[in-house]
């Protein structure tokens, strides 16, 4: 073997150095115009005037609003928001699960080799991915306006809009999670003649189930926060309430709503922890 000659003169330079240095430089050079465009001025934060304005606003957060009328609104809004989020995520899963199974590379038997049917497979995968991208690249509000034409004002249009965009996002993230774990077990099953679902269930899910679940729960939590968009088409909820109080700079109400948000997030977090433990 030729190694003996190399052994005498060890390569003292990492062959990757140049590429790494180059990419770092490129990144730095590109960062500069971005900072300019975003008007990055951290010192503005410490401007005395700004601090005073913000301080007095934050002061307005106390005491939180606790009038019974407002709490009544809040309870209604919370229930409605949770229902919208749950229904939306449920529909989103109907979209996301098949599409992500379709577009996960680790489940494509034709990638091995590559073997027969790779053209069709590749096209199906590309179509799946394109559909996912399309679904989530169009903002919720546009979908919502479209469904308003058919379903009228109210939660139905909001739920559908949520389902479509979140379906696109969940599908993409599911795909990425399935591809980023150890895919050798799934591959071994495909190599032993197993099908797509078998490889998914026996090869990928045991390792990925926890992460998939916790991401889904996180998305549910996002859907709760996204109720501001649902408000656009008459499916009120917490987000809309929050939006109003912030616009009116009504700190007390905002504080109460924020507290509800925090409670919901903590709930989602413990739900996710419980599910993860169950799946461990």
């Amino acid at each position, binding site marked *: *073997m030729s*190694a*003996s000659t190399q*052994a005498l003169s060890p390569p003292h330079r990492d062959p990757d150095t140049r590429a790494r240095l180059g990419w770092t430089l490129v990144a730095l050079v590109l960062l500069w115009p971005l900072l300019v465009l975003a008007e990055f001025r951290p010192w503005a934060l410490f401007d005395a005037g700004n601090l005073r304005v913000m301080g007095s606003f934050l002061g307005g957060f106390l005491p939180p609003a606790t009038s019974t009328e407002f709490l009544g609104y809040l309870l209604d809004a919370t229930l409605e928001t949770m229902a919208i989020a749950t229904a939306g995520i449920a529909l989103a899963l109907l979209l996301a699960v098949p599409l992500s199974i379709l577009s996960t590379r680790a489940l494509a*038997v*034709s990638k*091995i*080799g*590559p*073997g*027969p*049917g790779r053209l069709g497979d590749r096209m199906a995968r590309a179509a799946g991915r394109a559909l996912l991208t399309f679904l989530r690249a169009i903002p919720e509000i546009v979908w919502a306006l479209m469904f308003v034409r058919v379903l009228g004002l109210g939660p139905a249009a909001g739920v559908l809009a949520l389902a479509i965009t979140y379906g696109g996002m969940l599908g993409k993230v599911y795909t990425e999670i399935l591809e980023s774990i*150890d895919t*050798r*077990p799934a*591959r*071994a*099953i*495909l*190599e*032993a*003649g*197993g*099908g797509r*679902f*078998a*490889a998914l*269930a*026996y*090869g990928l899910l*045991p*390792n990925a189930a926890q992460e998939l679940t916790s991401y889904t729960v996180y998305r549910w939590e996002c859907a709760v926060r996204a109720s501001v968009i649902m408000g656009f088409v008459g499916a009120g909820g917490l987000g809309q309430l929050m939006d109003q109080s912030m616009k009116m700079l009504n700190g007390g109400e905002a504080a109460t709503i924020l507290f509800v948000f925090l409670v919901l997030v903590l709930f989602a977090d413990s739900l996710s922890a419980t599910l993860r433990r169950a799946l*461990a």
Partner: protein
Amino acid sequence: MGFELESAGLTHGNGFRALQRVSLRVGRGERVAVIGPSGAGKTSLIRLLGTALRPTEGRLDVLGANPWRLSAGALRRLRARIGTIHQSPPIPPRLRVVTAIHAGRLGRWPAWKGLLSLLYPVDVAGAHAALARFDLADRLFERCDRLSGGQLQRVGIARVLYQQPDLILADEPVSALDPALADAALGELVAESARSGASLFASLHAVDLALKWFPRIIGLRGGEVVFDLPTARLTDSMLHELYAAEGAMLPVQARDAAAGATTDPEADAKVIRLDTSRGR
């Protein structure tokens, strides 16, 4: 027919040429061992035969068909007839042993059965029988990450036997087992091949086991077949030559240091001792 290779070659993605000019023919029910130094290409060869990699040159025929000319469905059926024991078993750590064994038959089972078995093991008795052959019956419902190295390797073997393939490919199937168990496990593999008429093609580091259990031995070095002989015609010098190159490349000063400092008078004796009669 088991399989046939005609001047096949394999170049890895990074341009490394792992196999070249390999021509082999293994008949139905035949038992062949492949031996060779580390990095010789044994695993690559087995992955080629398992249709996990596609030869970059030459022709490959497995179980009477050229896998890379088959339709997707036919390839899948072919793969279900090939069982591969991997060097380190590709089993998700969280899977239970019974499920890991069932995964072997996913190629034959309809999809619903595979999915059902994940919820409720459908063939406990079959999995139990396969495990019992390797002294592991009591670990049926254990999680795979609670097994010792040798136990996990045996689960990998049991899974392939449970698959009931027509061609068994084994990549160092007993590397993590003690001599007695290694011998017994190879005995099981040989017995299975004899019982079902499946061809058995195994790569082995333990030359004595290869000589004991296999009537035909193939020597591989640097990606090429060095010899392909009935066991009886294999000579000591052939084996020496097969493993020689690498011994010679170990830097000499380190060995000298060892020899100088060690208290064991045998440490500076001839390092490579291969004796075809040992273990027979």
